[in-house]
């Protein structure tokens, strides 16, 4: 039993180390622009994973996910800009390990976002489908307008000068600011994936799936569907808030317009493309959706002087819906696909 418990930490550890290796390569051989895009990719992965819990696994339909990212981003940025908040020095850790403060900011951002998620989750108890969708959209518009009019966080001008971690000296090694931020981002990416994966592959997670499949049958089997739905919103919003925090400290600048309906649609595109209910699909699609506009469409735009980005985006989306409605992976994971290619048994058979 205990050995299984230890073994269960092996793959996340490998994933984390793997991401660090990639980070070192990025740090050494790529410019700041590419590095920034990689950090954005991390936020997008977290956003897609977390939205998949609500839309893909629980079968609810949120089209305002960006608002939770916005809340996390602004809370985190505000805390980092105002260390004297609460009347005490909020930077809990000395400079040498000041990056730990960024974990605290992220958790705070996530918690406030989770509280907002709880508020949005409440109407989902009474509203179904399209009505719920429009409430999530309405909520995100309300928050956006409030941010636009709150001078304490820059209002419509935006919030400038958000700090990012300093370089970190570890004995003879010095981690560049990028690498410090990237380590934090990787940590959150792996943690998000881990938490959601373990949730889904447990008794508690199957309750989410049952709500998606048939709410009335789920209730008849003793599932508290209202609790499940609110939980999905809260957990999902927490991670969206964390993603916002990473975004804030990577970009160093926030503007309410970043978190509009378009951003929410971006995330929806990711989970639809990757497959609703597939975590690894979300990761792949998030990478694709981040890199396509930056590394393919931007050069194209510079060449033609026309901004095709969103046009190509939207056509891709419609074509996908018409031609491959279940996304790249459907509800399967990469590991299932690899296994079925090798003709082995499916993931569920390992007592996850």
């Amino acid at each position, binding site marked *: 039993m205990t050995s299984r418990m230890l073994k269960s930490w092996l793959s996340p550890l490998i994933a984390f180390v793997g991401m660090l290796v990639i980070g070192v390569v990025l740090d050494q051989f790529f410019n700041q622009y590419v590095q920034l895009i990689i950090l954005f990719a991390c936020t997008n992965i977290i956003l897609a994973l977390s939205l998949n819990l609500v839309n893909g696994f629980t079968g609810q339909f949120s089209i305002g996910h960006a608002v939770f990212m916005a809340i996390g981003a602004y809370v985190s940025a505000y805390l980092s800009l105002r260390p004297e908040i609460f009347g005490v020095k909020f930077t809990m850790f000395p400079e040498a390990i000041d990056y730990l403060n960024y974990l605290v900011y992220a958790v705070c951002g996530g918690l406030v976002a989770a509280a907002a998620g709880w508020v949005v989750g409440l109407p989902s108890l009474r509203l179904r489908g399209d009505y719920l969708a429009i409430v999530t959209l309405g909520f995100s518009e309300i928050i956006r307008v409030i941010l636009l009019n709150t001078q304490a966080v820059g209002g419509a001008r935006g919030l400038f000068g958000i700090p990012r971690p300093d370089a970190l000296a570890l004995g003879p090694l010095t981690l560049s600011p990028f690498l410090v931020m990237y380590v934090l981002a990787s940590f959150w990416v792996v943690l998000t994936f881990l938490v959601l994966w373990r949730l889904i592959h447990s008794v508690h997670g199957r309750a989410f799936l049952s709500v998606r499949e048939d709410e009335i049958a789920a209730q008849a089997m003793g599932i508290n569907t209202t609790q499940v739905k609110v939980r999905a919103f809260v957990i999902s919003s927490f991670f969206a808030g964390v993603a916002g925090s990473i975004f804030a400290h990577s970009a160093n600048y926030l503007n309410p317009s970043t978190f509009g*309906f378009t951003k929410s649609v971006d995330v929806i595109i990711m989970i639809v493309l990757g497959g609703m209910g597939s975590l690894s699909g979300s990761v792949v699609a998030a990478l694709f959706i981040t890199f396509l506009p930056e590394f393919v469409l931007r050069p194209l735009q510079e060449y033609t002087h026309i901004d095709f980005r969103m046009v190509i985006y939207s056509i891709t989306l419609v074509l996908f819906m018409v031609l491959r409605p279940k996304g790249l992976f459907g509800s399967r994971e990469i590991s299932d696909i690899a296994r079925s290619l090798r003709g082995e048994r499916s993931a569920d058979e390992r007592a996850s």
Partner: protein
Amino acid sequence: MSEEILEFTQHLINGIALGSIYALIALGYTMVYGILQLINFAHSEVYMIGAFATYYGARWFGLLDRPGISTFVLLLVFAMICCAALGVLIERLAYRPLRNAPRLNALITAIGVSLFLQYTGQIVFGADPKVFPTLIEDAALASFHGVSIRSFDVAIFGVTLFFMIALSYLIQGTKIGKAMRAVSANRTVASLMGIDANRVITFTFVVGSALAAVGAVLVGMKYPKIDPLMGTLFGLKAFVAAVLGGIGNLPGAVVGGLIMGLCEEMVVGYISSTYRDAFAFSILILILFFRPAGLLGKATQEKV
């Protein structure tokens, strides 16, 4: 009359004018929803195209500096035809292939079409705002104790009233209207009764899109700055109006539109214009909290 009452009356008139335009657009949302159970996100872009059709129509027909009733009617009809054609095209190319797919897929497709039109619009029309042509002169027709009734307001009332009466006759009094109601009640049964559901759906898009064009022309007259993203927020609020009244319900859309317009005008007039849009959504959330199916919508219970 005292200053306050005067000001209030003016806001009331503006609010009803704005509200009736919302109602026109909301009708398009609600009709499509009633028949396909689909939030037609692209409807707001059909509305945007309606404004640009009028803009370019005025140029092509040489009607730029000739305001008058005939100019107004000609360009209105032109915009309606363009939008109706666009609506049919969207339905054929994007929605029809997904007729039997999960509703979520159709919804995402609708979002995709909406984005496509927005950004194609930015490339084709340019992202900067354009000035909407003057279709009729805006003049004070009458004045009662300082409250002026302007020709724009009269045009907006008159035109919306005309189209609403026409629509209700169409739905209640004609054969195709009956077919629309039948398909909306139950598409499968309607098909079995020999109704060509696809034809009815196409017709619904024609009517809804044409109404969006009417809304666009009226808005263009009152707020003469148009751009490719003009539809997003306005369309969203019109949709909110439809949900407010109970989506799928035609009188509901009109009621919702009027509430929306009045509230917005009052918020701008008495509270703050910056919170205008936030307020619209707050009302929606509040109303849905107490009436989950909207004001005039009927709550349905799933058959177990």
